[in-house]
Structures are given as C-alpha cells and as structure tokens.
C-alpha cells in the first residue's frame, strides 16, 4: 500500500526524521483555519498518490489568508493526472505546512532491492527533480549503497554514503542521521520503499524531509494497526472496496471484459490473451486455489457491479480447485444475481467433466462453453463488443 505524503511524514516524524509541521484539511474552511494557525507563507499541497503534483498545479504557496483560501479552493476537488497518464485522481484533502527556507535540495531513499535481496540506500545532491532523469543523465550523481542485513544501519554507517554523494560539508552529520532514521523507519514499519525528494537543508542548516513517498508491505499490515486502517480507507473504487470486504484479490482496469481466473499467473495471462484477441479487460480477479461456490458468487457480484462490463470470462484450470465446485458456484450465482451479460466459461483440469456436466444440466441462458483459453478469449471479446 502507498501512503499519502502527510501520512508518510507522520511516520517519519515518529522515527525522528525532521519534517515541517502541518495539518491536513478536507474543506476550504478547514484549510484556511489551518493556514492561520501555521502562519505565512505556507504550502498547500494536494494529497494524491501520484508524482508530478507540482506541475499539475496541486502544490501552491500562500502568502496570506486570501491566497490560502484561493489555493485551497482551486486544489480541493481538482483532478490530477499522473506523469504516466495515471488517474485522474480527485483531490479530497490537502496538507498545509509552514514554508521552509531552502538552502539546498537533495534526494534520499531506502528501497527493497529484490534482485540483491537487500535494502538499498540512495542519495543524491541533485534533489527536487525527477531522480530517474538524474540517474540517466549523470549516473555518478546518484550514490547507491546496499545495507548489510546482518548489521544495524547507524548514522556512522550512513555517513560515507552522504559524503560520496557530495552533500554540503556542514550538513553531512544531520543527513547521515536522517538516512539512518529513514532506514530504521523502513525496517520498523515494513516499508519496501521510502523516498524523500527533496530532502532539504534549510538556511538554518537543518536537514528536513520536504516530501515523502512510502510503500508499505501489504503482507505486514497485520502488525501495524494504524497503517492497516489507512489502507482500508484509501480504497475509493467501489468494486475494489467490495472485493476487499469479501476477501477477493481484485484490480480494476478500464475495459469491458470482466475476468475471473484461478491463480495470479493464470489470471494475468488471461488478461493478456483477451487483449491479444482484441478485447479490453475490465478487471483482474484471482479466485484463488480451492475456490468454493460461495467465493464464485462473491466474485460474480463484484465483477457484474461494474457497469462497463458487457461480458464475463471464466478461465479455470483446476488443480487443487475442482471444476465441479466452480460450476456449482456459477449455477448458484446465476440463481441469486441477475448478471445481465453473457458468460463465457472455460473449465479444464481437475473434475472438468463433472463441471461441464453440471453447467449443461443447469441450461443457463447466455452461457457459452469453450474448451481452450484462446477460444474462450475470442468468444468473450466477440460477445462483449466495443462496450460503447
């Protein structure tokens, strides 16, 4: 799960990383009241989970009450599209924080390096801009160092990294301290990514995290109660929220072909094959191993509640999952919910013959059986049409 900027900063603060103090607001009135308490100039920042907020007009500096009101009014409710076309994300809250006197902007991050199986610390003196571009243009400007998993990562261990990155001499101690604390935050909070861009040095020579990007390992949420609550409230897509409640692994996409498969790999592959057949998948839904009838009812309820869906594909290869159970689930679901769209079913693997017999006997209207994955993909694309 990804944290909003202010949530990440709160996490930093809890681990001793300096951040500007601020307040979150969901209305213009609250934002103005917060700005009045904080004082001017203050920054009013859109809280959405994408980069490029500044360019999109989602971050503004207010010099007085009138500007705070105007900026909060403009930012709250705006739609922000990410640099890679993500979103749009509607801004439903802003973070108001005191203005910082910036002497220098750096970059610092601690991420999980999957390939090397270690945490990787990265520091650059060139902060405040797109770090991927910095790394591409001038690889030497981004200093990377793996963290030894068997030893504590102290400020002393962090010091050579910030030195090599060429940060200002009189900021090295504090920057090393900050980097060590960011790593501590990652380990204590089960973060797989912590990025601070920019990490600033103020005119008073304090090192402060002016932004935050934090990803928490979803598998570890059980031991972080506060973060788990944030995760639950972060879902604003109605289907994703419904799926979460029912314990289904679901990802909303923007096409019109509803998809259910068993196993994450097979499900991803099903999306690809549908796309190759000229269709646009509406979702990813992994029914999991050993899917029972009740899970199928839940899955179909979620998929069919998406109004864009004009046909649904069931792609099941039964291993542990038994195809007769899946078939029973389909029959049960059809009696309980009105799908209103055609269903293409491909059952293969364990007990597929029994499953197919159950479906044939039920004689469900608008149910189409296919024997291969490719055939099923072509059929569902044909039935789904253009979706308009």
């Amino acid at each position, binding site marked *: 799960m990804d944290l909003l900027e202010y949530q990440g900063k709160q996490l930093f603060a809890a681990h001793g990383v300096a951040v500007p103090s601020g307040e979150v607001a969901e209305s213009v009135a609250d934002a103005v009241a917060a700005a009045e308490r904080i004082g001017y100039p203050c920054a009013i920042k859109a809280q959405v989970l994408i980069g490029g907020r500044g360019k999109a007009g989602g971050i503004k500096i207010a010099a007085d009450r009138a500007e705070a009101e105007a900026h909060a009014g403009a930012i709250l409710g705006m739609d922000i599209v990410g640099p890679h076309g993500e979103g749009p994300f509607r801004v439903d809250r802003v973070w108001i924080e005191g203005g910082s006197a910036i002497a220098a902007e750096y970059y610092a991050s601690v991420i999980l390096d999957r390939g090397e*199986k270690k945490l990787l610390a990265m520091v650059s003196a060139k902060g405040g801009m797109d770090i991927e571009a910095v790394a591409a243009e001038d690889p030497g400007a981004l200093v990377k160092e793996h963290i030894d998993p068997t030893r504590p990562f102290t400020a002393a261990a962090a010091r050579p990294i910030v030195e090599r990155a060429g940060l200002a001499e009189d900021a090295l101690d504090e920057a090393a301290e900050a980097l060590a604390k960011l790593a501590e935050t990652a380990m204590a909070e089960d973060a797989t990514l912590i990025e601070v861009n920019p990490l600033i040095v103020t005119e008073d020579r304090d090192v402060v995290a002016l932004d935050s990007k934090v990803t928490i390992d979803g598998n570890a949420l059980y031991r972080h109660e506060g973060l788990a609550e944030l995760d639950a409230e972060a879902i604003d897509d109605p289907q994703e929220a419904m799926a979460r409640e029912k314990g289904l692994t679901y990802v909303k996409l923007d096409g019109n072909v509803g998809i259910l498969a068993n196993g994450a790999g097979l499900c991803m592959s099903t999306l690809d094959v549908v796309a190759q057949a000229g269709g646009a998948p509406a979702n990813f839904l992994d029914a999991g191993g050993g899917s029972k009838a009740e899970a199928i009812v839940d899955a179909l309820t979620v998929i069919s509640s998406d109004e864009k869906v004009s046909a649904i594909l069931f792609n099941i290869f039964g291993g542990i999952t038994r195809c007769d159970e899946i078939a029973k689930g389909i029959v049960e679901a059809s009696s309980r919910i009105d799908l209103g769209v055609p269903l293409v079913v491909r059952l293969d693997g364990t007990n597929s013959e029994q499953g197919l017999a159950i479906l044939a006997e039920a004689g469900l209207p608008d149910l189409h059986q296919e024997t291969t994955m490719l055939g099923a993909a072509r059929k569902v694309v044909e039935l789904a049409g253009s979706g308009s």
Partner: protein
Amino acid sequence: MSIVVDEKTKLVVSGLTGREGSFHGLRNKAYGTYLAAGVTPGKGGQDVEGVPIFDSIREAVEGEGANTSMIFVPARFAAPAIDEAIESGVETVIAITEGIPVLDMLQTYWKAKEAGVRLIGPNCPGVLSPGKANVGIIPAQFFDPGKIGVVSKSGTLTYQIGNELKQAGEGNSSIVGIGGDPIIGSDFIDILKLYEADPETELIVMVGEIGGDAEERAADFIAAEISKPVVAYIAGFTAPPGKQMGHAGAIISGSSGTAQAKKEALEAKGVRVGESPTETAKIAVEVLRG
C-alpha cells in the same frame, strides 16, 4: 535424475496436523513421496495416519533422517518456521505459505544462504519430479516423466502449460514453482543451474511475470551459462503500473518490471518467448523435437 526432489527425498512437513498441511502432505505421500515425519510443537509423539509427529524439525531429522522440509504454517508464523528448518540440518526447505512479510524473508533468505540450505519459495506451489516425488500442492496428474524442466513464478499457469505439454506427448524432469513473492529463496538462475547439470533435462521452460528483474538477470545468465534450449513465457502485458496483480511480487514500479522489458531482454539473448501458454508449449515441443 531430476532436480530438488526425487526418490531420495525424506520429507518432514511443518503444519502436518493442520487442515491444509495434512491434506497436501498426505497427497504427497500417496503420490509416492517418502513422508518421514510431521512437526507441530506440543504434539510430539502423536501421528497423522501413521506418520510420526515431532515437536521440532531437528528431532524429525535426528529421528527419521528427514532431509527436506515443507512449510505449511500460517504467514505470521512462517518465517520463524523456515528459520527453524534452515537450522535443523535438512538440505532443502520448500515454503508454500503465502503472505509472509517481505522484510522477514530478507532476513530468512540470508540465513539460508549462510547455512547452505536450498530454500524454494515462499508463496510457491512446491516441486514435482514426475514419477519420483511431489512436495507441495502441484496436481501431479497433469505431468508425466520426461525431458522438459519447468521453472515458474506461478502455479496454475504452470499446470496449464504442463497439461498442454502432456497432451502433446511430452513430459517433465521436474517442475519447480519458485514463488510469486518479491524475495524468494531460489531465483530462476538457481534453478536454471540445476537443470543445466541434470542429464535428464533436455529443454527448459521458464515462466515469468511482471515485477522485479529476475527474468532480465536470467536472460544474461542463460546467454552466458546455459547450453540447453530455453523457452519462456511472461504474464502481465496488460497489467497497469503500480498495481499488485495477485502475487505480492507482481507489480510494475514506475517503468521497471514490465512484461515487455522482460520479453525483450530474453529475446535479445536468443530465448524464444511464447505469446500465450498454448504457444509456449507448442514452441517447447517444436524445439525439443528439432
């Protein structure tokens, strides 16, 4: 020969007294795997259908000569259970459990490395060597003994491809599910090495998916070290960035970890990549038969 598990495997299952553990452990036994023992702390001295239960893995190693451990315990207790297995004296640990916190696995990974123990998984379906042994949840009925070694991040996708190979009349030396988590004990490269050294394996099918750079690393390794033909499949071309697609490791971060990049990296090193599971199986059969 096969790799990782075979007729010399003496299996100890952590969680054998649980519902999932007993179902799959006994299924593995019914397939012909030598199931030496089960482990559940506090239940030592009991048995599950004649299989002795011990309080610790070490006792099962000492008492029954177990050399392979399978972990079936719930996610939040799994990392310590894997650690226990690593320290118990077994050669191989196969962790099926899904949902283990990744930073726990980071610690466990290095413990296994240091101890020289082969760790497969977590979040994997296990390893099957057709006709010899099955450790995990792979449905053995879709696989015959044969010449194709399979290594995969995904379970059902592997069954799909295995079934197509079987229908085409080909079988497998082994099927290794390495798991869909960001940190796994054995990567493609570790398993490719074993297949290269296995005389029974004549061709390798590698099934990857979005996220991380294990496929790209494997591509370089194949070019440098693997003499046997490799055919690959990659899932997740339609996955959007930033969304976790079921597996904890299946996520495109920014612009890295895409299926397209993996396909291109493999093809650049001469590895043929199938468009679909069906085409992948077809290419494998074609290459195998020359």
